């Protein structure tokens, strides 16, 4: 995380183009730009800026937005965080609900029409850009049928349904491609397990098929699946970045993209820092989950 923050900090400053000049372009007054630069400390040498930034971040201060109103970045990020998390958690649940049964059935009914059907649908899901699915959903359910709101976000505090109804379409848009990836991986890891020696032994012991699959095969297929979930969680974050922009949900993704488009350094840095933190945390979570699923894995 520190490495990413540092890299981004220096790379942003290495780019040609001065955000201050761009901002005062309309007034055409270079003195105003100088003044603003002093205000934000951008007139100091880069290493001084870096040390200052780093010390501030350690104290939880991410600086203030330099574009438009000078809102503290920590407040922008704090407002965006629950939106992105709501979206991420719901999409994750939806994807798991679709993918686990689909992957298992497809593995157990290998090379049957059901398997081929699931595989084809998964392929389409993998190939469909999530922002396109988002637009299709808006066309059908918001513009034509008027069933659900097309854009925006309502906090959970204002009631469950208003919150949930705004998140249904984005959740489907993010969750579906993600389900396709997980389903394919569950299928292949389950097939691997079904071929293994201990399954043959269990089967020759005469165990019931149901018990065999649920007690012996599935838990063993879970290890690679959890790894996949970890990777997929990262992909899901990438999905939220784009889909938030389609549905005008001011989550971390939209904050990041708006920051980039406005050349708002502190906001871009803050958003990248938080997004990176989510990745690091989800990787840790996956590692911790391993020890729960497979007691043989121990971290010293």
């Amino acid at each position, binding site marked *: 995380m520190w*490495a*990413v923050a540092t890299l*981004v900090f220096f*790379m*942003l400053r*290495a*780019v040609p*183009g001065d955000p201050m000049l761009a901002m005062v372009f309309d007034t055409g007054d270079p003195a105003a730009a100088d003044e603003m630069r002093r205000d934000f400390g951008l007139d100091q040498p880069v290493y001084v800026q870096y040390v200052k930034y780093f010390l501030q971040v350690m104290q939880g201060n991410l600086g203030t937005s330099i574009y438009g109103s000078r809102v503290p970045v920590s407040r922008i990020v704090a407002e965006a965080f629950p939106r992105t998390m709501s979206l991420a958690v719901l999409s994750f649940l939806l994807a798991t609900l679709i993918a686990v049964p689909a992957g298992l059935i497809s593995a157990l009914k290998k090379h049957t029409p059901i398997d081929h059907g699931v595989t084809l649908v998964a*392929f*389409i899901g*993998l*190939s*469909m*850009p999530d*922002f*396109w*699915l988002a*637009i*299709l959903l*808006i*066309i059908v359910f918001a*513009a034509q049928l008027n069933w659900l709101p*097309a854009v925006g976000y309502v906090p959970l505090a204002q009631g469950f349904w208003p919150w949930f109804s705004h998140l249904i379409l984005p959740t489907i848009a993010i969750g579906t491609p993600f389900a396709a*990836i997980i389903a394919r991986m569950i299928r292949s890891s389950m097939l691997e397990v079904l071929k293994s020696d201990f399954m043959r032994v269990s089967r020759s012991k005469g165990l019931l098929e149901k018990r065999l699959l649920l007690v012996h095969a599935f838990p063993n297929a879970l290890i690679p699946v959890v790894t996949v979930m970890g*990777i997929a969680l*990262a*992909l899901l*974050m*990438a999905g939220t*970045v*784009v889909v938030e*922009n*389609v549905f005008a949900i001011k989550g971390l993704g939209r904050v*990041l*993209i708006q*920051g*980039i*488009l406005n050349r708002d350094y502190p906001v*871009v840095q803050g958003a*990248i820092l938080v*997004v*990176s933190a989510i*990745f*690091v945390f989800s*990787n840790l979570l996956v590692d911790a989950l391993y020890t729960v699923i497979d007691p043989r894995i121990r971290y010293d």
Partner: protein
Amino acid sequence: MAEATVNEPLNSEDTYRRPSHVQLWRRQLLRDKKALVGSIILTLLVLCAVFAYWITPYDPNAMDFDMIMRPSWAHLLGTDDLGRDLLSRLIYGARVSLFVGFSTVAISLVAGVALGVAAGFFGGWIDTIIMRYIDLQWAFPNFIIAVYLVAVFGTGLSNVIIAISLAFVDDFARIARGMVLTIREEQYVAAARTLGASNNRIMWRHILPNSMAPLIVQATISVSYAILAEAGLSFLGLGVQASTPTWGLILAESRSFISRAWWLGVFPGFSIMITVLSINFLGDALRDVLDVKEVKEPG
């Protein structure tokens, strides 16, 4: 005399030549339905992109008073808010998508393999430095890295290509390094070394050809993800200039007319999907034929 007949060379017609690996792969690939469908669609798309100038019914940027027209015989896929023909714009959009898809993967393949082979072959501090960087990149999805990099470099075609290429480097570097570490221990490499082969020769003649299979599969799948990444960046306004018709950009523009013009939202996305699907079919078939297990879904 009898011995002489035994040693006589056989007629060329009678000789049985064992088919090479490449021939075997090709045969298997031709039998695979997914590969067949994928390559037919992809070939058609590439032809469309190459001959865009001759096959498009209208100039992709020519404006007209027929604004927001439904699909009709005059405009097969309808027109946009400026009266531009959607079909012509989509055909030109294929150029950008395919060009970005193939060029980024070519760049990241070469760069990634160079890094991976160097890390695996030399080991020591070179390996440590390269792998630290690769691990850092590995922790993030490629699309997010591409967004970070565009944030730094700025938009435009060449910056988008650089950003996406850099974002995909780690996938190839990891595979190449892994293959080098495995192959380095093989007896034929030890034999070549005993015979006095140089590092260079071992790398080019022995290690690279033997690590081709997983790289080919990863490259194919990466093309589809690079196309998705380009479309995503264009869609967010971080892609190629607004004057160039790209699928992502046309989709982004369609959002303002979502309630009036469904065709503007449906067809560009369908073009992206069908292109990515055809490449994914091909990649999956290659994965089966070349028997490659470890491929990262780059996302």
